[in-house]
């Protein structure tokens, strides 16, 4: 039963710390079930905009980035644009969930991981978040109580989350340790 191919979306990025776990999960799943269909979701402002191109999986880049901190003009413009980008990205995400029709959506953190997880929750698709850091990021704190499962790296993280969680320990990066 557990060798049947599955379709999944893995959303995450911004920095290598959120992106490489996504690649590690994809590579490990493909080793176990080679005909699984995997689609990555990231932000066009993150490191993944470049790194996805070197992968064989299909991908979607959302036009979304975090809030600008401080009072500079750039931050101000970024924050004014945020609701527009959020809505546009959410519509794109919903369309992707409809057309790709995943069995599960995985979030590995970073601002592009929140919307696919939120869309999957709204559609009743199973969801899993992988939280790498001892203090959970925004997406994890926002959505942990509504996803099916959260995998964490540090026991400490449990203190910040209401939900009962799996303990995954540290994941290795996908950067070819051969």
């Amino acid at each position, binding site marked *: *039963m*557990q060798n*049947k191919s*599955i379709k*999944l979306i893995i959303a995450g990025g911004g*920095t*290598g*710390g959120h*992106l*490489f*776990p996504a690649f*590690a*999960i994809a*590579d*490990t*799943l493909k080793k*176990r079930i080679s005909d699984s269909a995997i689609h990555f979701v990231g932000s066009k402002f993150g*490191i993944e905009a470049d790194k996805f191109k070197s992968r064989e999986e299909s991908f979607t880049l959302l036009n979304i980035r975090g809030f600008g901190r401080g009072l500079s003009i750039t931050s101000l413009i970024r924050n004014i644009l945020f609701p527009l980008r959020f809505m546009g990205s959410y519509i794109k995400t919903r369309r992707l969930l409809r057309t790709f029709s995943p*069995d*599960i959506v*995985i979030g590995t953190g970073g601002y592009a991981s929140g919307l696919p997880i939120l869309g999957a929750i709204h559609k009743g698709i*199973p969801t*899993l978040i*992988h939280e*790498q*850091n*001892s*203090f959970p*990021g*925004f997406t994890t704190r926002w959505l942990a109580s509504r996803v*099916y*499962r959260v*995998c964490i*790296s*540090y026991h*400490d993280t449990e203190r910040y989350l209401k939900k009962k969680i*799996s303990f*995954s*320990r*540290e*994941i*290795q*990066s996908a*950067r*070819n*340790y*051969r």
Partner: protein
Amino acid sequence: MNRSKALSKFQLDPDHPIITIIGGSQGSLFINSMVSESLDYLAGKLNIQFIWQTGPTHFDDLQHFESKYSSISLHPFIDHMDSAYAAADLVISRAGAIALSEIAYCGKPSLLIPFHGAAADHQTKNARSLEKAGAAIVLSENKLTKERFIHEVEQLLSDREKLVEMENAARSVSTPDAANTIVDNILELVYQ
């Protein structure tokens, strides 16, 4: 990846110590500045060699060091981190969770300088877990001077026994099967 293969990839000399510097995928201005200011002594006098991931934004400003010292291998981003770790006698890094997982997995002694601006100062918490295991030395960026930085690097590299202890401690906290654990969780959710 073995050490000699990794060394030839970066064109470094096996007879002198090697430090790999990782400021995260975006690079760390603080670590880059600290290393830049210490190079005259560390590279010039002690003949330490560096594999240095600067981050794409800082790369151009630091590129002149590569022509000044033949012992520096400078990169905006390193895709084959396995070689960069395999070559290293010591790793100097920020303390993002994945960097620490990689350091533990590769069994490398590390000098960690957590980014205090990270949410809830979580990098310090990440770093303390490796320090507690005896695998790392944690330096706080608020109090760190060039002199202290140089002292810690010199001290560590001259103590082979301590480095081996730290390597073993790093390996002991590594969990190489984590990706499989996550995939187990995924399959359980899909098939339940």
